[in-house]
């Protein structure tokens, strides 16, 4: 009957960091974020691919180690399998850690689910001189196994063929023989009406992993657990695992030759990156180099874009008759949009470096280096991923804090995230640092990001002392092997980020520039509205030496932080329409100390609208969103004032 079906659901399941999301991206053409670290995927995602006239609907589930644990990611995956059973499961297995990855596979097979297996990262295994016999493994598991590689598309058609052949797979539950007392417990649960896999799951999760039907079953379940506990020191989870690994080792004995230790290159890299004394200095140095390069390397292409924009402005200026529309185009649209567009290279470079750190496996090492400090300010080790993601954009970063289960640690991670300087603020820094601190712009960038981190940690420490902790959450992190980032996926990543930036320029920044121009050009007689507004609010910002122009720019940044740069360009635009003109105008209007204060204010003041909405949604209350806004405004004002006052003494 299923011959007539033309659409199937396929769920991707695998351990964290097994390359599942890369494979998902290849299959569906999606561009989901990947990284060489566990926990990059939190919620499930979906995509499509049509193959031989059949529509495949793919679901990328979060990476999990086991179906029997009760962490957020595991529950997402487990509930998905029970509530909306997919037609087929694509189990992605990391060839470099076969035994542990197959432990999850064995849970799927015990549950009698239809499964095909993609053995990922085979190239790495082979580089180490090890091998896996795919047909032997397939025979042992009684499931189709195929080699795959998240970095090249060459396996995709074979993989799709395999999926197509298996959409109607009839699956028999796998039977693993466990230790006699465990078998006894399983049998007693089966008598109470559970299936075998439910019995095993109940025992290995100590009564969490299955929703039992009746009170009788529940009672029998607890009785079985109590009896096991009285007979064995080991937890049932360990006993089940021994059974699983026994089965797996039997399987691998025939199909795999593995004797690898850490490779010499990995060992050498770790001996520096994880060195007790060198680790942290190297981390800080890497970050400094990253910001220095973001500024310096970015300035060359930025000059070309700038030249292009001012050429267009001049052409439009020369060919259009004098009119309001011309002014709107040249002084509003081209100046404002162009003023942000020139920072595209810097933004792209920053994303490139962050992706480099993530995909190489360095980020997980950095999480280890900073764990002690983080735990001192009430942050969980898992907060590292959301915090680093914040350098890109705070919105997905705040959502990824869902992996943190302890409510206080999660709340703190959410509330301090806006202080992690997102890429939208970079144009403002690059513009101002380029004007006032031309020689040390990279260092100023680095300093600003570090200031953000420092403020974030200080606020975290403060919150940790005022909000009570609900329970302890263990921090256990697997370190990924070092990987050479794949040029293809790096390119795609950077390409996407450039696309995001351009879309934002075409949307909110374009509208913002026009609005600012309109407010500045009307009424045509007398003081423009924008200036009136600026003068009205300016006294609040006067202690930092800001004029009405900066005031207006900061106000416009409530929508999105890039708009600050666009506003400055539009407001200062007199008769010059290239960056040099703006730089000259800003440079003469503002003292360097004020320039620095403006950067600090931009760094710290309230999150953008999208971030506020996300905080509201993730914390479930406007209260915390309000706290975040107020906290930002107060800190920004104090911080900028302090910086201005101190810098005035020195500069």
């Amino acid at each position, binding site marked *: 009957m299923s011959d007539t079906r033309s659409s199937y659901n396929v769920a991707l399941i695998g351990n964290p960091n097994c390359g599942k999301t890369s494979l998902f991206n290849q299959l569906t053409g999606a561009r989901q974020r990947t990284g060489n670290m566990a926990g990059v995927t939190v919620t499930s995602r979906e995509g499509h691919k049509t193959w031989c006239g059949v529509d495949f609907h793919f679901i990328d589930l979060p990476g999990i180690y086991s179906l029997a644990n009760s962490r957020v990611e595991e529950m997402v995956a487990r509930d998905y399998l029970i509530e909306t059973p997919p037609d087929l499961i694509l189990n992605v297995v990391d060839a470099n*850690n076969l035994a542990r990855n197959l432990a999850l596979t064995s849970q799927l097979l015990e549950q009698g689910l239809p499964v095909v297996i993609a053995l990922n990262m085979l190239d790495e295994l082979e580089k180490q001189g090890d091998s896996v016999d795919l047909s032997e493994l397939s025979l042992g598991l009684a499931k189709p196994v195929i080699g795959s590689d998240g970095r090249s598309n060459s396996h995709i058609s074979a993989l799709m063929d395999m999926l197509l052949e298996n959409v109607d797979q009839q699956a028999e539950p796998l039977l693993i023989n466990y230790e006699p007392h465990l078998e006894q417990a399983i049998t007693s649960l089966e008598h109470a009406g559970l299936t075998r896999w439910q019995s095993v799951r109940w025992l290995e999760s100590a009564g969490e992993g299955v929703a039992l039907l009746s009170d009788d079953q529940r009672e029998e379940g607890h009785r079985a657990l109590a009896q096991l506990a009285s007979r064995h020191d080991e937890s049932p*989870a360990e006993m089940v695992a*021994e059974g699983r690994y026994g089965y797996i080792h039997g399987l691998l004995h025939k199909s795999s030759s593995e004797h690898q230790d850490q490779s010499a290159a990995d060992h050498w890299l770790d001996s520096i990156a994880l060195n007790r004394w060198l680790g942290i200095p190297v981390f800080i140095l890497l970050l400094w180099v990253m910001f220095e390069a973001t500024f310096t390397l970015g300035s060359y292409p930025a000059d070309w874009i700038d030249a292009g924009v001012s050429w267009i402005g001049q052409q439009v200026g020369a060919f259009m008759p004098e009119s309001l529309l011309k002014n709107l185009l040249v002084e509003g649209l081209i100046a404002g949009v162009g003023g942000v567009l020139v920072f595209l290279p810097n933004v792209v470079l920053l994303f490139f470096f962050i992706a480099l750190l993530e995909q190489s496996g360095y980020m997980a090492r950095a999480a280890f280096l900073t*764990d002690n400090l983080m735990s001192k300010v009430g942050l969980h080790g898992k907060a590292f991923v959301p915090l680093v993601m914040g350098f890109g954009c705070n919105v997905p970063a705040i959502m990824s804090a869902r992996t943190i289960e302890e409510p206080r640690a999660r709340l703190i991670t959410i509330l301090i995230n806006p202080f992690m300087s997102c890429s939208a603020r970079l144009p403002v820094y690059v513009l101002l640092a380029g004007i006032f601190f031309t020689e040390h712009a990279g260092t100023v960038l680095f300093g600003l990001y570090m200031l953000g981190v420092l403020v974030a940690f200080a606020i975290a420490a403060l919150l940790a002392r005022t909000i009570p902790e609900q329970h302890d959450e*263990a*921090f*256990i992190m*697997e*370190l990924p092997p070092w990987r050479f980032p794949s040029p293809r996926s790096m390119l795609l990543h950077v390409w996407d980020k450039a696309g995001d930036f351009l879309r934002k320029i075409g949307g909110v920044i374009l509208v913002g520039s026009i609005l600012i121009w309109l407010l500045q050009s009307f009424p045509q007689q007398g003081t423009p509205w924008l200036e009136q507004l600026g003068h009205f609010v300016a006294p609040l910002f006067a202690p930092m030496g800001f004029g009405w122009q900066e005031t207006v720019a900061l106000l416009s940044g409530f929508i999105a932080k890039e708009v600050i740069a666009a506003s400055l360009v539009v407001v200062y635009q007199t008769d010059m329409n290239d960056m040099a003109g703006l730089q000259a105008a800003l440079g003469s209007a503002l003292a360097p100390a004020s320039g620095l204060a403006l950067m600090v204010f931009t760094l710290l003041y309230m999150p953008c609208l999208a971030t506020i909405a996300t905080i509201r949604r993730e914390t479930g209350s406007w209260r915390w969103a309000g706290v975040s806004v107020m906290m930002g405004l107060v800190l920004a004002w104090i911080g900028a004032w302090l910086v201005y006052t101190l810098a005035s003494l020195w500069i």
Partner: protein
Amino acid sequence: MTLTQLKARQQARIKAIAGPEPLRQRLVALGVLKGLQVSVSATSLLGNPRIYFIGKQQICLRSAEAGYIEVELQS
């Protein structure tokens, strides 16, 4: 002795895993099992957390958790 007492360059084997149930389940799911060989891979500046080679994997553990893992030295 427990894993926290293991010194650099010492080799040991996991004898038993204690601790609260969720932690034991978590370790088991990560493939941290009785009988596996362990050694210290790296120590952070203040000595906590540390990274251990457990079997073929490198796993970062805080002392709070590592203290639940009982090991015996191998000569």
